[in-house]
């Protein structure tokens, strides 16, 4: 596991966007070889999306041959509701870039048969050749996507009932009325994310410091589902200083000493794009 500690939230956005840029460009996707990207929503990745849009506008990257799969979506929330993840993805990312709408996949929380919707999603990921890079964020309780504490670490895409903590945390997005927060969501499973070739998790802010500690200094535990990625051969966690507050000094110093090596991961080769 790699842990990249950036000074600030802004630099987390910068670092993660540069990494995506480099991974996609190194992959050199074309019509026969699509880059398959897993995407999160929420406040943490917003900065990364903004940077990627800027790279697109500068001509440094194209999403023409990129396929995307989003982690999750609320159940029974109108698709154009400003809190739906369809709305988020369209307005914060997709409408600004050259991605083909055909290549975008977001779970439909309004589908009549939710179980079929989930199974179809898994099938589509397989048909796309699996996910090359899955980007995720976590909640303060260490959930990745909507894999709430107690979720099976072998879980696949399914309907999930949200934990009380999540409902309370999300109420602020629904006029501070917890009754308006959707009670269920569709989400990829921990196992679905584990199957990706690489996982990049963004963790920022002191309120997520305890979750980061659980993710890397304690054992694998289904009450902190993000800890499952200790078992993944290619996991990359990008965090800011605030998120490290619960870590041992030794841990922080160790990963910080790897800064030069980590920097090589985002170095741009000087080749003409």
């Amino acid at each position, binding site marked *: 596991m790699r842990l990249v500690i950036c000074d600030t939230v802004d630099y987390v956005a910068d670092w993660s966007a540069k990494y995506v840029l480099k991974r996609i460009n190194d992959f050199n996707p074309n019509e026969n070889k699509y880059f398959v990207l897993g995407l999160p929503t929420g406040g943490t990745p917003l900065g990364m999306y903004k940077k990627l849009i800027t790279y697109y506008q500068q001509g440094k990257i194209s999403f023409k041959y990129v396929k995307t799969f989003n982690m999750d979506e609320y159940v029974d929330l109108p*698709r*154009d509701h400003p809190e739906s993840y369809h709305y988020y993805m*369209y*307005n914060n990312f*997709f*409408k600004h870039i050259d991605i083909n*709408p055909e290549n*975008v996949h*977001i779970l439909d929380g309004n589908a009549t048969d939710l179980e079929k919707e989930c199974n179809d999603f898994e099938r589509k990921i397989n048909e796309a050749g699996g996910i090359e890079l899955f980007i995720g964020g976590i909640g303060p309780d260490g959930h990745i996507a909507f894999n709430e504490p107690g979720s099976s670490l072998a879980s696949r895409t399914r309907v999930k009932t949200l934990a009380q903590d999540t409902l309370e945390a999300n109420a602020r997005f629904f006029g501070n009325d917890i009754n308006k927060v959707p009670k269920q969501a569709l989400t990829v499973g921990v196992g679905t994310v584990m199957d990706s070739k690489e996982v990049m998790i963004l963790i920022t802010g002191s309120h997520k410091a305890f979750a980061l500690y659980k993710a890397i200094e304690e054992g694998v535990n289904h009450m902190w589902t993000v800890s499952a990625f200790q078992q993944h051969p290619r996991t990359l966690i990008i965090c800011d200083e605030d998120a490290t507050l619960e870590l041992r000094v030794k841990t922080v110093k160790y990963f910080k000493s790897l800064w030069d090596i980590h920097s090589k991961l985002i170095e741009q080769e000087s080749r003409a794009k």
Partner: protein
Amino acid sequence: MGVLKQFCNCRILRDSRIQTEDLWVRDGRIINPERIFYDEKIKPDVKIDCGGALISPGYIDVQINGGFGIDFSFNVNNVEEGIDRVAKGLLTHGVTSFCPTLVTSPSEIYHKILPRIKKRNGGSHGACVLGVHTEGPFISPNKKGAHPEHYIKKFDQGFKSVIDMYGDLDNICMFTLAPEIPNAISVIEELCKRNIKVSLGHSIANLNEGEEAVKHGASFITHLFNAMLPFHHRDPGLVGLLTSDKIPFGRIVHFGIISDGIHTHPAALRIAHRTHPEGLVLVTDAISALGLEEGIHQLGQFKIEKRKGCAYIAGTDTLCGSITEMSKCVRYFKDATGCTVVEALEAATLHPARSLGIDSYKGILNFGADADFILLDEKLELLSTWISGECVYEKIPGSTKQLEV
């Protein structure tokens, strides 16, 4: 399905905010691109580079007597041609919808003209005709303004007087009357039943009479300050409706105001704007000399001289009406009141649409609305006019750039 157009590199006025957002249009309406993206999964057929312009809904003029040499009230023989000429000319002023206004006239004139001014959609042929605004003859002789006194009438037989005067009311959408005329209240109720908006004006009504009219359905004031009692602190008159506490809950009394720097003093504009900004509707109240060159014009029975942007009775210094185009009224209003760009534009778009009850599809750029809009530069100068998503006027022909898709 028609052509899918994406207007990009622009800012748009939507939800009372200027947003950096693309505008998507298909089949004459503004559409939600998110639905296109997720449901139809297609790209636009045409992409139009707006060069950083501001996109506003097209202007709506609810009081205009004529223009381009045509006076609607005197153009009896070639009604359709007259409407066509003005409708077409208004496109160059950014007006996409209007209410041709007929001033006090004898009954036979209404019977001849009214049936021939049909409501119709806009297009390259001209701006949309929303319906006729009849201003008179049911007004006060004491506040007749330029209306001929001998044609002024009362509601002697209640609503029958209205029917007898105009004949068919189908083409009327706005009706100016003086509420102090006996039987006015029952007439107001009848007009409202027929979805004709009642405006108070050319009147010596006191505030109580105005409030009574509003309670029974009147919803507009015709050219505020002009042709009504001046504001008095113990009897505020119709002007007092702007701050009345007797307006039924949830209703907005709108008022037309001429913002040409001549017919309403800028200080009066500011008073109107600061006391009741939500109700403010810019109207041109323009006469036939609107859109004509400077010089002397024979218009109907009058000789009118257009000099330094004002219209005079030829050879005199007597002003004979307003000739300031809507786009200038918007700019003057903004400068005079110091209001925001949004407020200035909404006074000529959303507010007039709302006053006619058509703000679900006109005067806004929300999804589902008619794609009638204008492109403006940073000084609010008109660059181009669009109706149903089609370009119907360009200040510099060929300046709209289509991008490769």
